């Protein structure tokens, strides 16, 4: 029971830490690494499920035409 309670007291810090990490890493990806593609044509845009199978390409900057 005590073990359960001690686990529960970490709930809020854990959630906040995950949110902070997700925001920070997204910031780094976009502002620091600039690791996002830019699409100039709708034909080049991936579908929602396509992104699941091609994660590495998302982290590679696309050269500006």
């Amino acid at each position, binding site marked *: 029971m005590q073990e359960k309670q001690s686990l529960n007291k970490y709930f809020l810090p854990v*959630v906040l830490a995950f949110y902070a990490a997700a925001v920070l890493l997204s910031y780094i990806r976009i502002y620091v690494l600039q690791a996002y593609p830019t699409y100039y044509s709708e034909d080049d845009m991936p579908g929602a499920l396509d992104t699941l199978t091609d994660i590495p390409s998302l982290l590679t900057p696309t050269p500006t035409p």
Partner: protein
Amino acid sequence: MMCEWDIAQFLIFSSNGEPLIYYSHLTSIFIFLGLLGFTFLKLKPWPKNSFRLMAVAYVVWLFCDLVLWANEGVQNVLFFWTIVNLVEPLIFIAAFAYFYHFTEGKPLPNWSRWGIFALLLPTFVMAPIGLSVVGFDYSSCDRNVVEGVAAYYNYFLEALFLVMLVLRAIALFFGKRFAGNRTKLVLVSVGTSLLMFSFLLANFLGTFTGDYVTSQYGHIAVPIFGAFLAYLTIKYESFEPRILLIDTLVGGLFILLLSLFFVEDANYQIYVNVLALVLMVPLAYSLITGIRKEVRSRKEIQKLANDLSLANDRLKELDLMKSEFLSIASHQLRAPITAVRGYAANVNEGLYGPIPDYLKEPLDTIQESSRLMANSIEDYLNISRIEQGRMKYEKSQMDLADMVKKAVVELTPVAAKKKIALTAEAPEDLMINADIGKIKQVIVNLVDNAIKYTPSGSVTVSAAMNGTMARVTVTDTGVGIPAEEIGGLFEKFKRARGANKVNTTGTGLGLYVAKQLAEGHGGKVWAESDGAGKGSRFIVEIPV
């Protein structure tokens, strides 16, 4: 392809977005900030944490969404869009937690919190690796992004919590727990589910139709349901809606005045607007503080009244306990004191043989003291019966004149000891329908009281008819009663000022009991006096 975008001020002010966006988003931000502020007042803690979380998440969401509309920077759009996707499910989770807390009266259990966290994990993971916002859409100049699978996962989460809420509401509606309080359940269910639904619909329509402008009406609806939920919380948790209303009204007026700066071009219009704002600040401040002060005072008074009521209930309870104790104690004392009194009388009358002279005085004292004690016990018993509502009157035809004479005979030794002349003036018979024992107690108490407060002189007890009432008057030549003290003589434990100097054995119960017993017969009792030192008259009237 180059797009012509206006540069945004403070991230969110530019002409890139439709004016409707500012009205929908800024209004919602201010309303939710207002609601957030109110929940920091003394609201009971239970639903406010989930409501605050929902309000904070929604305000963050609105601000970030405003950035997407107004900002021209590609990176800003990508970053804030990612935050929008991170925060969005939180609004639904908090709304669900609020509903759960409101209906169950306790927060979500820990296992379900961790379960929700597990559901959020994919969102945390997908955001930084680009599965939430894949990249920037430069195919048009709408400052859109290409959304990844995380956006659709968000819709799944949002729909999941909405469905869970609706199913839970239906189950509760048809269950027994809310059988007597279905209105409350319906109101909170409708408020929460419509808040979630209007938000979900607004985003869903925007994503799938591309008509993000029309979908803003969904965001205009969200604060309405948010305010509705806050009102429900207020209503059921004694929060003060007047503060909410006045603050919202003032906040709305400020937003309106501020928004006029965006549409007014002429200098004089701006000056008038500035003047209106300057005038409004002190007025709004005094209005809000005045109402808050009044509401707080009223609440404090209400709290004091409640505390007083609780204390009063507790006192009544204690009084009842005291009466019960008194009743039990008196019963236990009555039997032995009756025996003491009886045997003392027998010994005094020589039933057990002649008694020496030196024992006469101690025996008289035992007899008198036991009589006083028996009278007091009888008074205590009567009081406890009256206060517990257990007093019963067994009425029968009785001769009041005879009763007066008997009472006088009984108390003659007491009067003789003080060298007071105690006489009865009563007709041959005076028949009334009453409880013999109780009426005797009334007369004995009045006569006993007269003897106690008459240092010398006489006490006369007379009985006569007075219309439809039989009247007994006890007249004494004693210490008299000041006019200002006559009214309080018949109160419990009340004794006239300085009474201790004349009589030390009084308890302040005799007259109270006499009054209660007379009134129990439908009669009344009162006192008259010409003033201090001028004697007094105690009159009791009993219906025939």
